[in-house]
């Protein structure tokens, strides 16, 4: 494929581009679902194409094509330069890129079992076994389960000499049980809601998740929620399980630290950020216990934000985002690094596929675990009056990322260090920095999970990206609970 990229680079240079990079991408996916004892959907997909990103007259142009013949590739490169010149018609200043030593490299996701080698029969058998377990519980009215496998092979070549071949593999699985009765629909999901757990791993992830083993418990909880009391309203200490905390990190740390948002580039769609540049190394984002990193390196774990190189050829890095509660870093790119005084990109530019422009995306934005040994059960035992909330059900946050409200599938009221009752429809809300400053306990490494969020939307045209979020159950003091249901 390198020859395809070189055709494009040559034409971009001949047409006057001062910089160009080319990505040739081959993507393969398999999606299998079951619903109430039947296969819901079964599909395989492949998509192959190339794109050219070019700077001409100091402005950006981007063009993509599914055709990989020489004529189509050269026309696409010419078009990218032509579009760049049109962009230059409305600009305030020239694009400038932070220097980056061109990498020549091979990288691929480590895995044990290639999921595409596991038979479809075996996968369907697993899904139907889960489905049968879920529906064996009286009161379950809808059972859904899914398996997803993705492989993306990319060749990245730039006019500066970068030449990177990278293959990423991801696996996802999960299920949900619904119980409809009277005038109420309750739902429980495992291992997480909205598609389950996703990681950059092979089929070994499926074995690790213990999907069948947890199905009956999940279904029983969905039915039991109908008999549970409504979650009380008021101010409580809350404990969030690691999957809900992962989404809390995603929404109230991951998005506000995207430097393109901060600089106004997403103002029309995703929004801006309260984290203006004057707050860097000055804002107390959270309590002293809060340490958050943006870590794309393999040593952080097999998150959906793990890679060797980003989509402009910058190696994976670890950036401290919050250090002992202090705000210390943004997610940046070669174009934006200079705005925060950095000499080098943080390496976070990624594209959904061959036909999309790379943009700043979360890598693995993780809350580091507590250093003192602390299990979830010990944390509950140390909580006098509170609510434990598990598994996200709804999420919403304003366009500067201040005010948020989350709902969870299930809650447990805690009194005197004990879970005293199940509660339904738990929700909590707050202001981002007030919330993170109220954190007073984080469970330790053995409770820490690197969750995958496969559906993060951003950009115009919108791109969906996978991100990673490591978290251990944590406690937050004096949080507003249940205002979602007030006056309703």
């Amino acid at each position: 494929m390198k020859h395809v990229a070189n055709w494009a680079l040559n034409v971009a240079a001949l047409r006057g581009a001062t910089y160009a990079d080319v990505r040739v991408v081959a993507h393969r996916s398999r999606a299998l679902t079951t619903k109430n004892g039947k296969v819901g959907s079964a599909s395989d997909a492949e998509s192959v194409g190339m794109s050219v990103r070019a700077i001409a007259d100091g402005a950006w142009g981007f063009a993509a094509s599914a055709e990989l013949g020489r004529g189509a590739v050269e026309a696409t490169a010419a078009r990218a330069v032509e579009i760049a010149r049109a962009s230059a018609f409305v600009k305030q200043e020239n694009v400038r890129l932070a220097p980056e030593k061109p990498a020549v490299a091979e990288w691929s996701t480590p895995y044990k079992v290639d999921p595409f080698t596991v038979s479809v029969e075996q996968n369907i058998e697993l899904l139907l076994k889960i489905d049968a377990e879920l529906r064996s519980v009286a009161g379950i009215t809808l059972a859904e389960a899914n398996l997803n496998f993705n492989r993306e092979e990319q060749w990245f070549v730039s006019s500066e000499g970068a030449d990177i071949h990278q293959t990423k593999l991801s696996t996802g699985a999960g299920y949900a049980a619904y119980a409809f009765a009277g005038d109420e629909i309750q739902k429980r999901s495992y291992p997480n809601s909205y598609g389950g757990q996703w990681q950059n791993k092979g089929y070994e992830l499926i074995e690790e998740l213990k999907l069948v083993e947890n199905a009956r418990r999940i279904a029983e909880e969905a039915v039991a929620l109908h008999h549970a009391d409504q979650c009380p309203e008021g101010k409580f200490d809350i404990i969030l399980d690691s999957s809900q905390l992962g989404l809390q990190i995603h929404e109230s740390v991951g998005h506000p630290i995207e430097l393109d948002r901060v600089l106004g580039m997403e103002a029309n769609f995703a929004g801006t950020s309260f984290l203006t540049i004057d707050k860097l190394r000055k804002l107390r984002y959270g309590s002293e216990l809060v340490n958050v990193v943006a870590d794309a390196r393999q040593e952080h774990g097999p998150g959906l934000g793990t890679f060797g190189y980003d989509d402009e050829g910058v190696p994976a890095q670890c950036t401290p985002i919050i250090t002992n509660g202090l705000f210390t870093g943004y997610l940046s790119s070669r174009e934006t690094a200079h705005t925060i005084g950095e000499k080098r990109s943080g390496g976070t530019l990624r594209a959904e596929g061959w036909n999309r422009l790379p943009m700043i995306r979360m890598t693995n934005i993780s809350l580091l675990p507590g250093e003192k040994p602390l299990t979830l059960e010990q944390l509950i035992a140390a909580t006098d009056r509170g609510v434990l909330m598990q598994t996200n059900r709804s999420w919403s946050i304003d366009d500067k990322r201040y005010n948020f409200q989350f709902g969870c599938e299930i809650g447990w009221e805690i009194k005197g260090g004990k879970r005293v009752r199940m509660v339904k429809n738990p929700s909590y809300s707050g202001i981002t920095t007030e919330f993170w400053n109220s954190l007073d306990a984080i469970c330790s490494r053995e409770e820490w999970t690197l969750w995958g969020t496969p559906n993060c939307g951003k950009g115009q045209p919108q791109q969906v990206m996978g991100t990673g979020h490591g978290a251990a159950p944590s406690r937050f003091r004096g949080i507003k609970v249940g205002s979602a249901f007030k006056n309703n």
Partner: protein
Amino acid sequence: MLTQEQAGDIFERIKKLSTGDVVEVLFSGGHFALTRFANNTIHQNVAEENHVVSVRAVFGGKTARAFTNKFDEESLRQVVLSAESLARVQHPDPDLLPMPDPSEAAGNAGGDARATQTPSRHFERTAQITAEQRAEGVKKIVGVAEKHKLTTAGVFSSAESFDGIFNSRGLSRWHTQTSAEVSITMLADDSSGWQKASSPDVANLDPLRLAEIAAQKAVGSAHPREIPPGKYPVILEPAAVLDIVGFMFWDYSGMAILDQRSFLTGRIGTKLFGDNITIWDDVAHPLQSGSPFDGEGMQRQKVGLVEDGVVKRVVYARATAERMKRSEYKDKVGPIAHTGHGFSLPNEMGEMPLNIVFAPVSNPQTVEQMIASTERGVLVTRLWYIREVEPFEKMLTGMTRDGTFYVENGRVQGGLRNFRFNESLIHLLSNVEAMSLPLRSCGEESFDMVVPAIKVRDFNFTEVTKF
């Protein structure tokens, strides 16, 4: 761009490679371009050409689909092989129907559903828009921003696309259309304004007018004040209406009733909303867009979903209609017949209405008239990050954004800090006091619709944010 004739040739090649009982092939793609601006600068400017073919294989009640965007002989052979390999290992689906032939696909449905002819949605002037023309449009928008000492961000996009379906029972359907969209945010120090419009015909878009309205909203909402959360009379502009009501249309589906995940379960035939709410799904409406056939090639029918506040019926794919006729709900869901709203097979969601049209009321009011009749209330330009909190009462949460105003004594009195709402759609549509004439509108949380602005009693704001 791929033509129907070229697609027909590809279908014939696929048919020869197939060993299944029957085969169905879907085509989609086209070219798309988008010019994106922020900080009064074009910062992203993209163009794409792509085409996708998907093959559905069937063996004795077992079916599966595979996709590729390569049309060479080896890729077509591989995509057929993938679809057939997947299909062979499925369990037979007793609900799977034979593929429709051309006569069935064009046929009418029962009940009150009506077959309709859609107008042409392909405009050469939209298809031919260049990057230079989009840049010129952006320059004018930036000019408006500079005139008002504002910063602007947004998009100007254009596309020419096709959808086609062929099957081995002789079905051959093809749809081409164009689309153009302009979205503009104007930003001041502590306020913002927004406008967005889309149309198959770029001549229907007026970027300068949109820019001027967005700028006026940014200027008019400067130095926003905070008022306490609570229940207020609220005027929702059309974009806010479509973004919030869009969350209920997944439930107007026969499959959602059968799955017991619809808030309409047990409620069809009941008066759920106010007398002034009548809603159709109508792909042929002159302000609508999209393909006149569904994922199986069936003609989309005009369907009355809500009449005078009473939920009358839901939409159906072919197989869902047959299942519903055998179900415990068959006497409780109104007319049961396929309506041409199915997704491509196989899928687990069934169907959905995608061409929503609110019927006009006999006494429409303009937004200005709604403001004039409001003693104390809130005017909302746009809603944001809407999510479902409780599925059976359809309680949703979200934020106001880009132009929230305080209304007192019949006049807009300036900007407000943005609110979080928690509001039931049943409550909302039961409390509509006034409606404007419906118009084609677009937002960010749902698909484009023909909706009015509305004035609603007791809209429930639960919190205020910091800006």
